[in-house]
């Protein structure tokens, strides 16, 4: 190769490199999940393949399918996320986003993406974080710690029922947990789109997980962007666990809480007042 040709090749290569660099997504904070490191560049093509149809090429929830979807897809430019381990108002951790992608969201169009490799998922998370400058200016706060769960008791369940009444959970979720409380039809999310409260009768999965720990985390962190607030300042851990155990009795499942509840209810059910306006008492409490 003649020197002149070699120089031209070098200059061309630099030009190509600059061009490629100019079209790459803006670097976001690094994404780490376990031993994996996410790369936004790799995540971009995965995002276009799997996510952009709903969430939009710009992450603004304006994908071509968004108009048909209810509830609407998440707007990543707002960097507000429901499922977090961090306090209300904070960014989620990388693990939170990774778990959300893996798990999907029940009763929405967001499926579980568990078939993607973990590396693919962490790459997607990395790219999602490029849509908002908030990821460059703020850090997720420390995840909330969940104290160990006490064994469910009928006293705890009844106390949880009282809390459900007193904290006015029933106004949205309904007296029997059907998601049909008096306020249910008025609820909107942070984009003024209508949003439905969770119906505990629908099954075993919650928006952000399936376990008692997940349920505890949901109402202690709140679901940012939705009317579901954080109760971290109003509930002590023991009270929160009582509420968890009561909520489990609302589900059509064979859980330890449901067994305790059914056993007690057959002989004491008549003592209870229905949950709702002026209700919720009885049961010896």
């Amino acid at each position, binding site marked *: 190769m003649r020197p002149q040709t070699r120089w031209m090749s070098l200059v061309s290569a630099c030009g190509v490199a600059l061009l490629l660099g100019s079209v790459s997504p803006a670097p976001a904070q690094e994404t780490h999940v376990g031993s994996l490191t996410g790369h936004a560049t790799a995540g971009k*093509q995965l995002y276009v393949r799997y996510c952009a149809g*709903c969430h939009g090429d710009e992450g603004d929830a304006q994908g071509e*399918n968004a108009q*048909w979807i209810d509830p609407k897809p998440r707007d990543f430019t707002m960097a507000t996320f429901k499922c977090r381990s961090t306090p209300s108002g904070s960014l989620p951790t990388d693990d939170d986003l990774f778990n959300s992608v893996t798990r999907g969201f029940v*009763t929405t169009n967001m499926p579980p993406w568990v*078939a*993607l490799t973990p590396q*693919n998922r962490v*790459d997607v998370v990395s790219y999602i974080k490029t849509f908002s400058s908030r990821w460059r200016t703020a850090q997720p706060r420390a995840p909330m710690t969940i104290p160990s769960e006490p064994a469910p008791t009928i006293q705890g369940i009844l106390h949880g029922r009282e809390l459900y009444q007193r904290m006015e959970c029933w106004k949205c979720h309904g007296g029997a947990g059907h998601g049909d409380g008096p306020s249910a039809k008025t609820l909107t999310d942070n984009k003024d789109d209508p949003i439905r409260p969770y119906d505990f009768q629908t*099954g075993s999965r919650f928006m952000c997980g399936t376990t008692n720990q997940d349920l505890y985390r949901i109402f202690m962190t709140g679901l940012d962007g939705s009317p579901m607030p954080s109760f971290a300042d109003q509930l002590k851990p023991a009270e929160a666990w009582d509420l968890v155990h009561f909520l489990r009795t609302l589900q059509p499942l064979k859980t330890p809480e449901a067994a305790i509840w059914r056993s007690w209810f057959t002989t004491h059910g008549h003592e209870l007042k229905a949950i709702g306006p002026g209700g919720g008492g009885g049961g010896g409490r």
Partner: protein
Amino acid sequence: MVRRFLKAAAPLATLLCAAMTPNPGSIAATSYTAGYAALATRIPAFARKYGLRCSACHTAWPELNAFGQRFKDNGYQLGNDRDSPIWQAPAYWPIAMRTTPQLHLESTTHQVTDAAPAPGGKTVTQAGFDLSGVDFLLLGTLYKNITFGLVPTLDADGTTGLEAAFVRFDNLGNSPWANLKVGKFELDNLLSEKRFTWLSVNGGQLYAYHYLPPGSANNFGFGDNQIGAEFSGHSINSYTRYSVAMLTTDDGTPGLPGGKSMDVMFTASRAFAMGSGLGPQRIGVFGYLGHRPTVFDSINGAPIPGSGSANKAFFRFGATAQLWVGNLEIIPLVAHASDDAALGPGAVKPTWNSALLEAHYVATPRLLVQGRYELLRMSQQGDPATPKTQGNADAIALGFRAYPFMFSRDGMAIHGELAMTKSVGVPPMTGDGSGVVDPSAKVWSRSLLLAFDFAF
């Protein structure tokens, strides 16, 4: 559609007889452009139902990616509690249709014609605008964890067929490891011909799946939908999969025309989340133990359908993989086949081996560049007098698929393909050609295709 196609290809025995006894007129009996390769199953009805782009389930449609495989394994359910029909708007109907207008050229050498009699023959070429048939893809859920599939077909010449019709009970005992499918369905082939990204006559089928020795009474093809029951299972993410199927011995032909015994098929595969490619790395094995009757009860000399007995066995087994290096997908497959000697064509059991290597470069979700090389080698002829190389074949195909748009309502691919096969002493498996006189003649068959492949 594959079945129709193979009906044209199946009478290899007849063709071989024609080769041994030249019959210039037989060319008229076999269409050179009898049909097209499998119109694969990719289903905008699902994309409409769930609001997902084609690319969510397909590497480049119709080939499934890991997410699409899990969706299929889960009974066409995503698992986000929107799977039951109760969630769909009443106007939703789980149907999609697919067809492929095209311009194509087919050319086959060593063809005996009136003007070019045996032994030399001539090269016959046909070209022009053409149509595929239409596949009506009706698949979905009848209820949570009860899946159905119905695929009527309408060929371009007006022939109708029923490619698939099944019901599947998913997640039995609330476990993904137990699913039962009954009816007519595609075998659980790890390399699916129904989700092929190849459409031409020469490129659209695998020798590994369809080859039968000239003169064989067998009619089995891995790529043909079969009738029976399949028990299958998978891990939550479908990285580990298995299936066991019991199938009637009729190669998917309804009405029980064959015998009363059963064929058995099994597959097992495991995927590993390794590397940073577009999907996991999967390896798998498959096997098929089949039977075909050699004796039938008869009335006035005419065999009674379904009364076959004196079954003779045949085996197919092999291994395949789906490997990712970045955006490059590599699919190797090796297979071994043997038929009982009583299935013909001679006194010795014929055996053969095949291998292929297919590569897809997924440049973007909208552009696929692909290539494939396949070979088949006879290791033992049924008739010792047959030349050892007769039946050997080499096939190569190159192509691209470009998707000008991609969203959840429909899909279209601009498809270009060049495919060639070289078969020794027999016509190509495409069904093109009337016969070959010289058992050592190297018959070349070529397809050049430009098509607009769309579904809605």
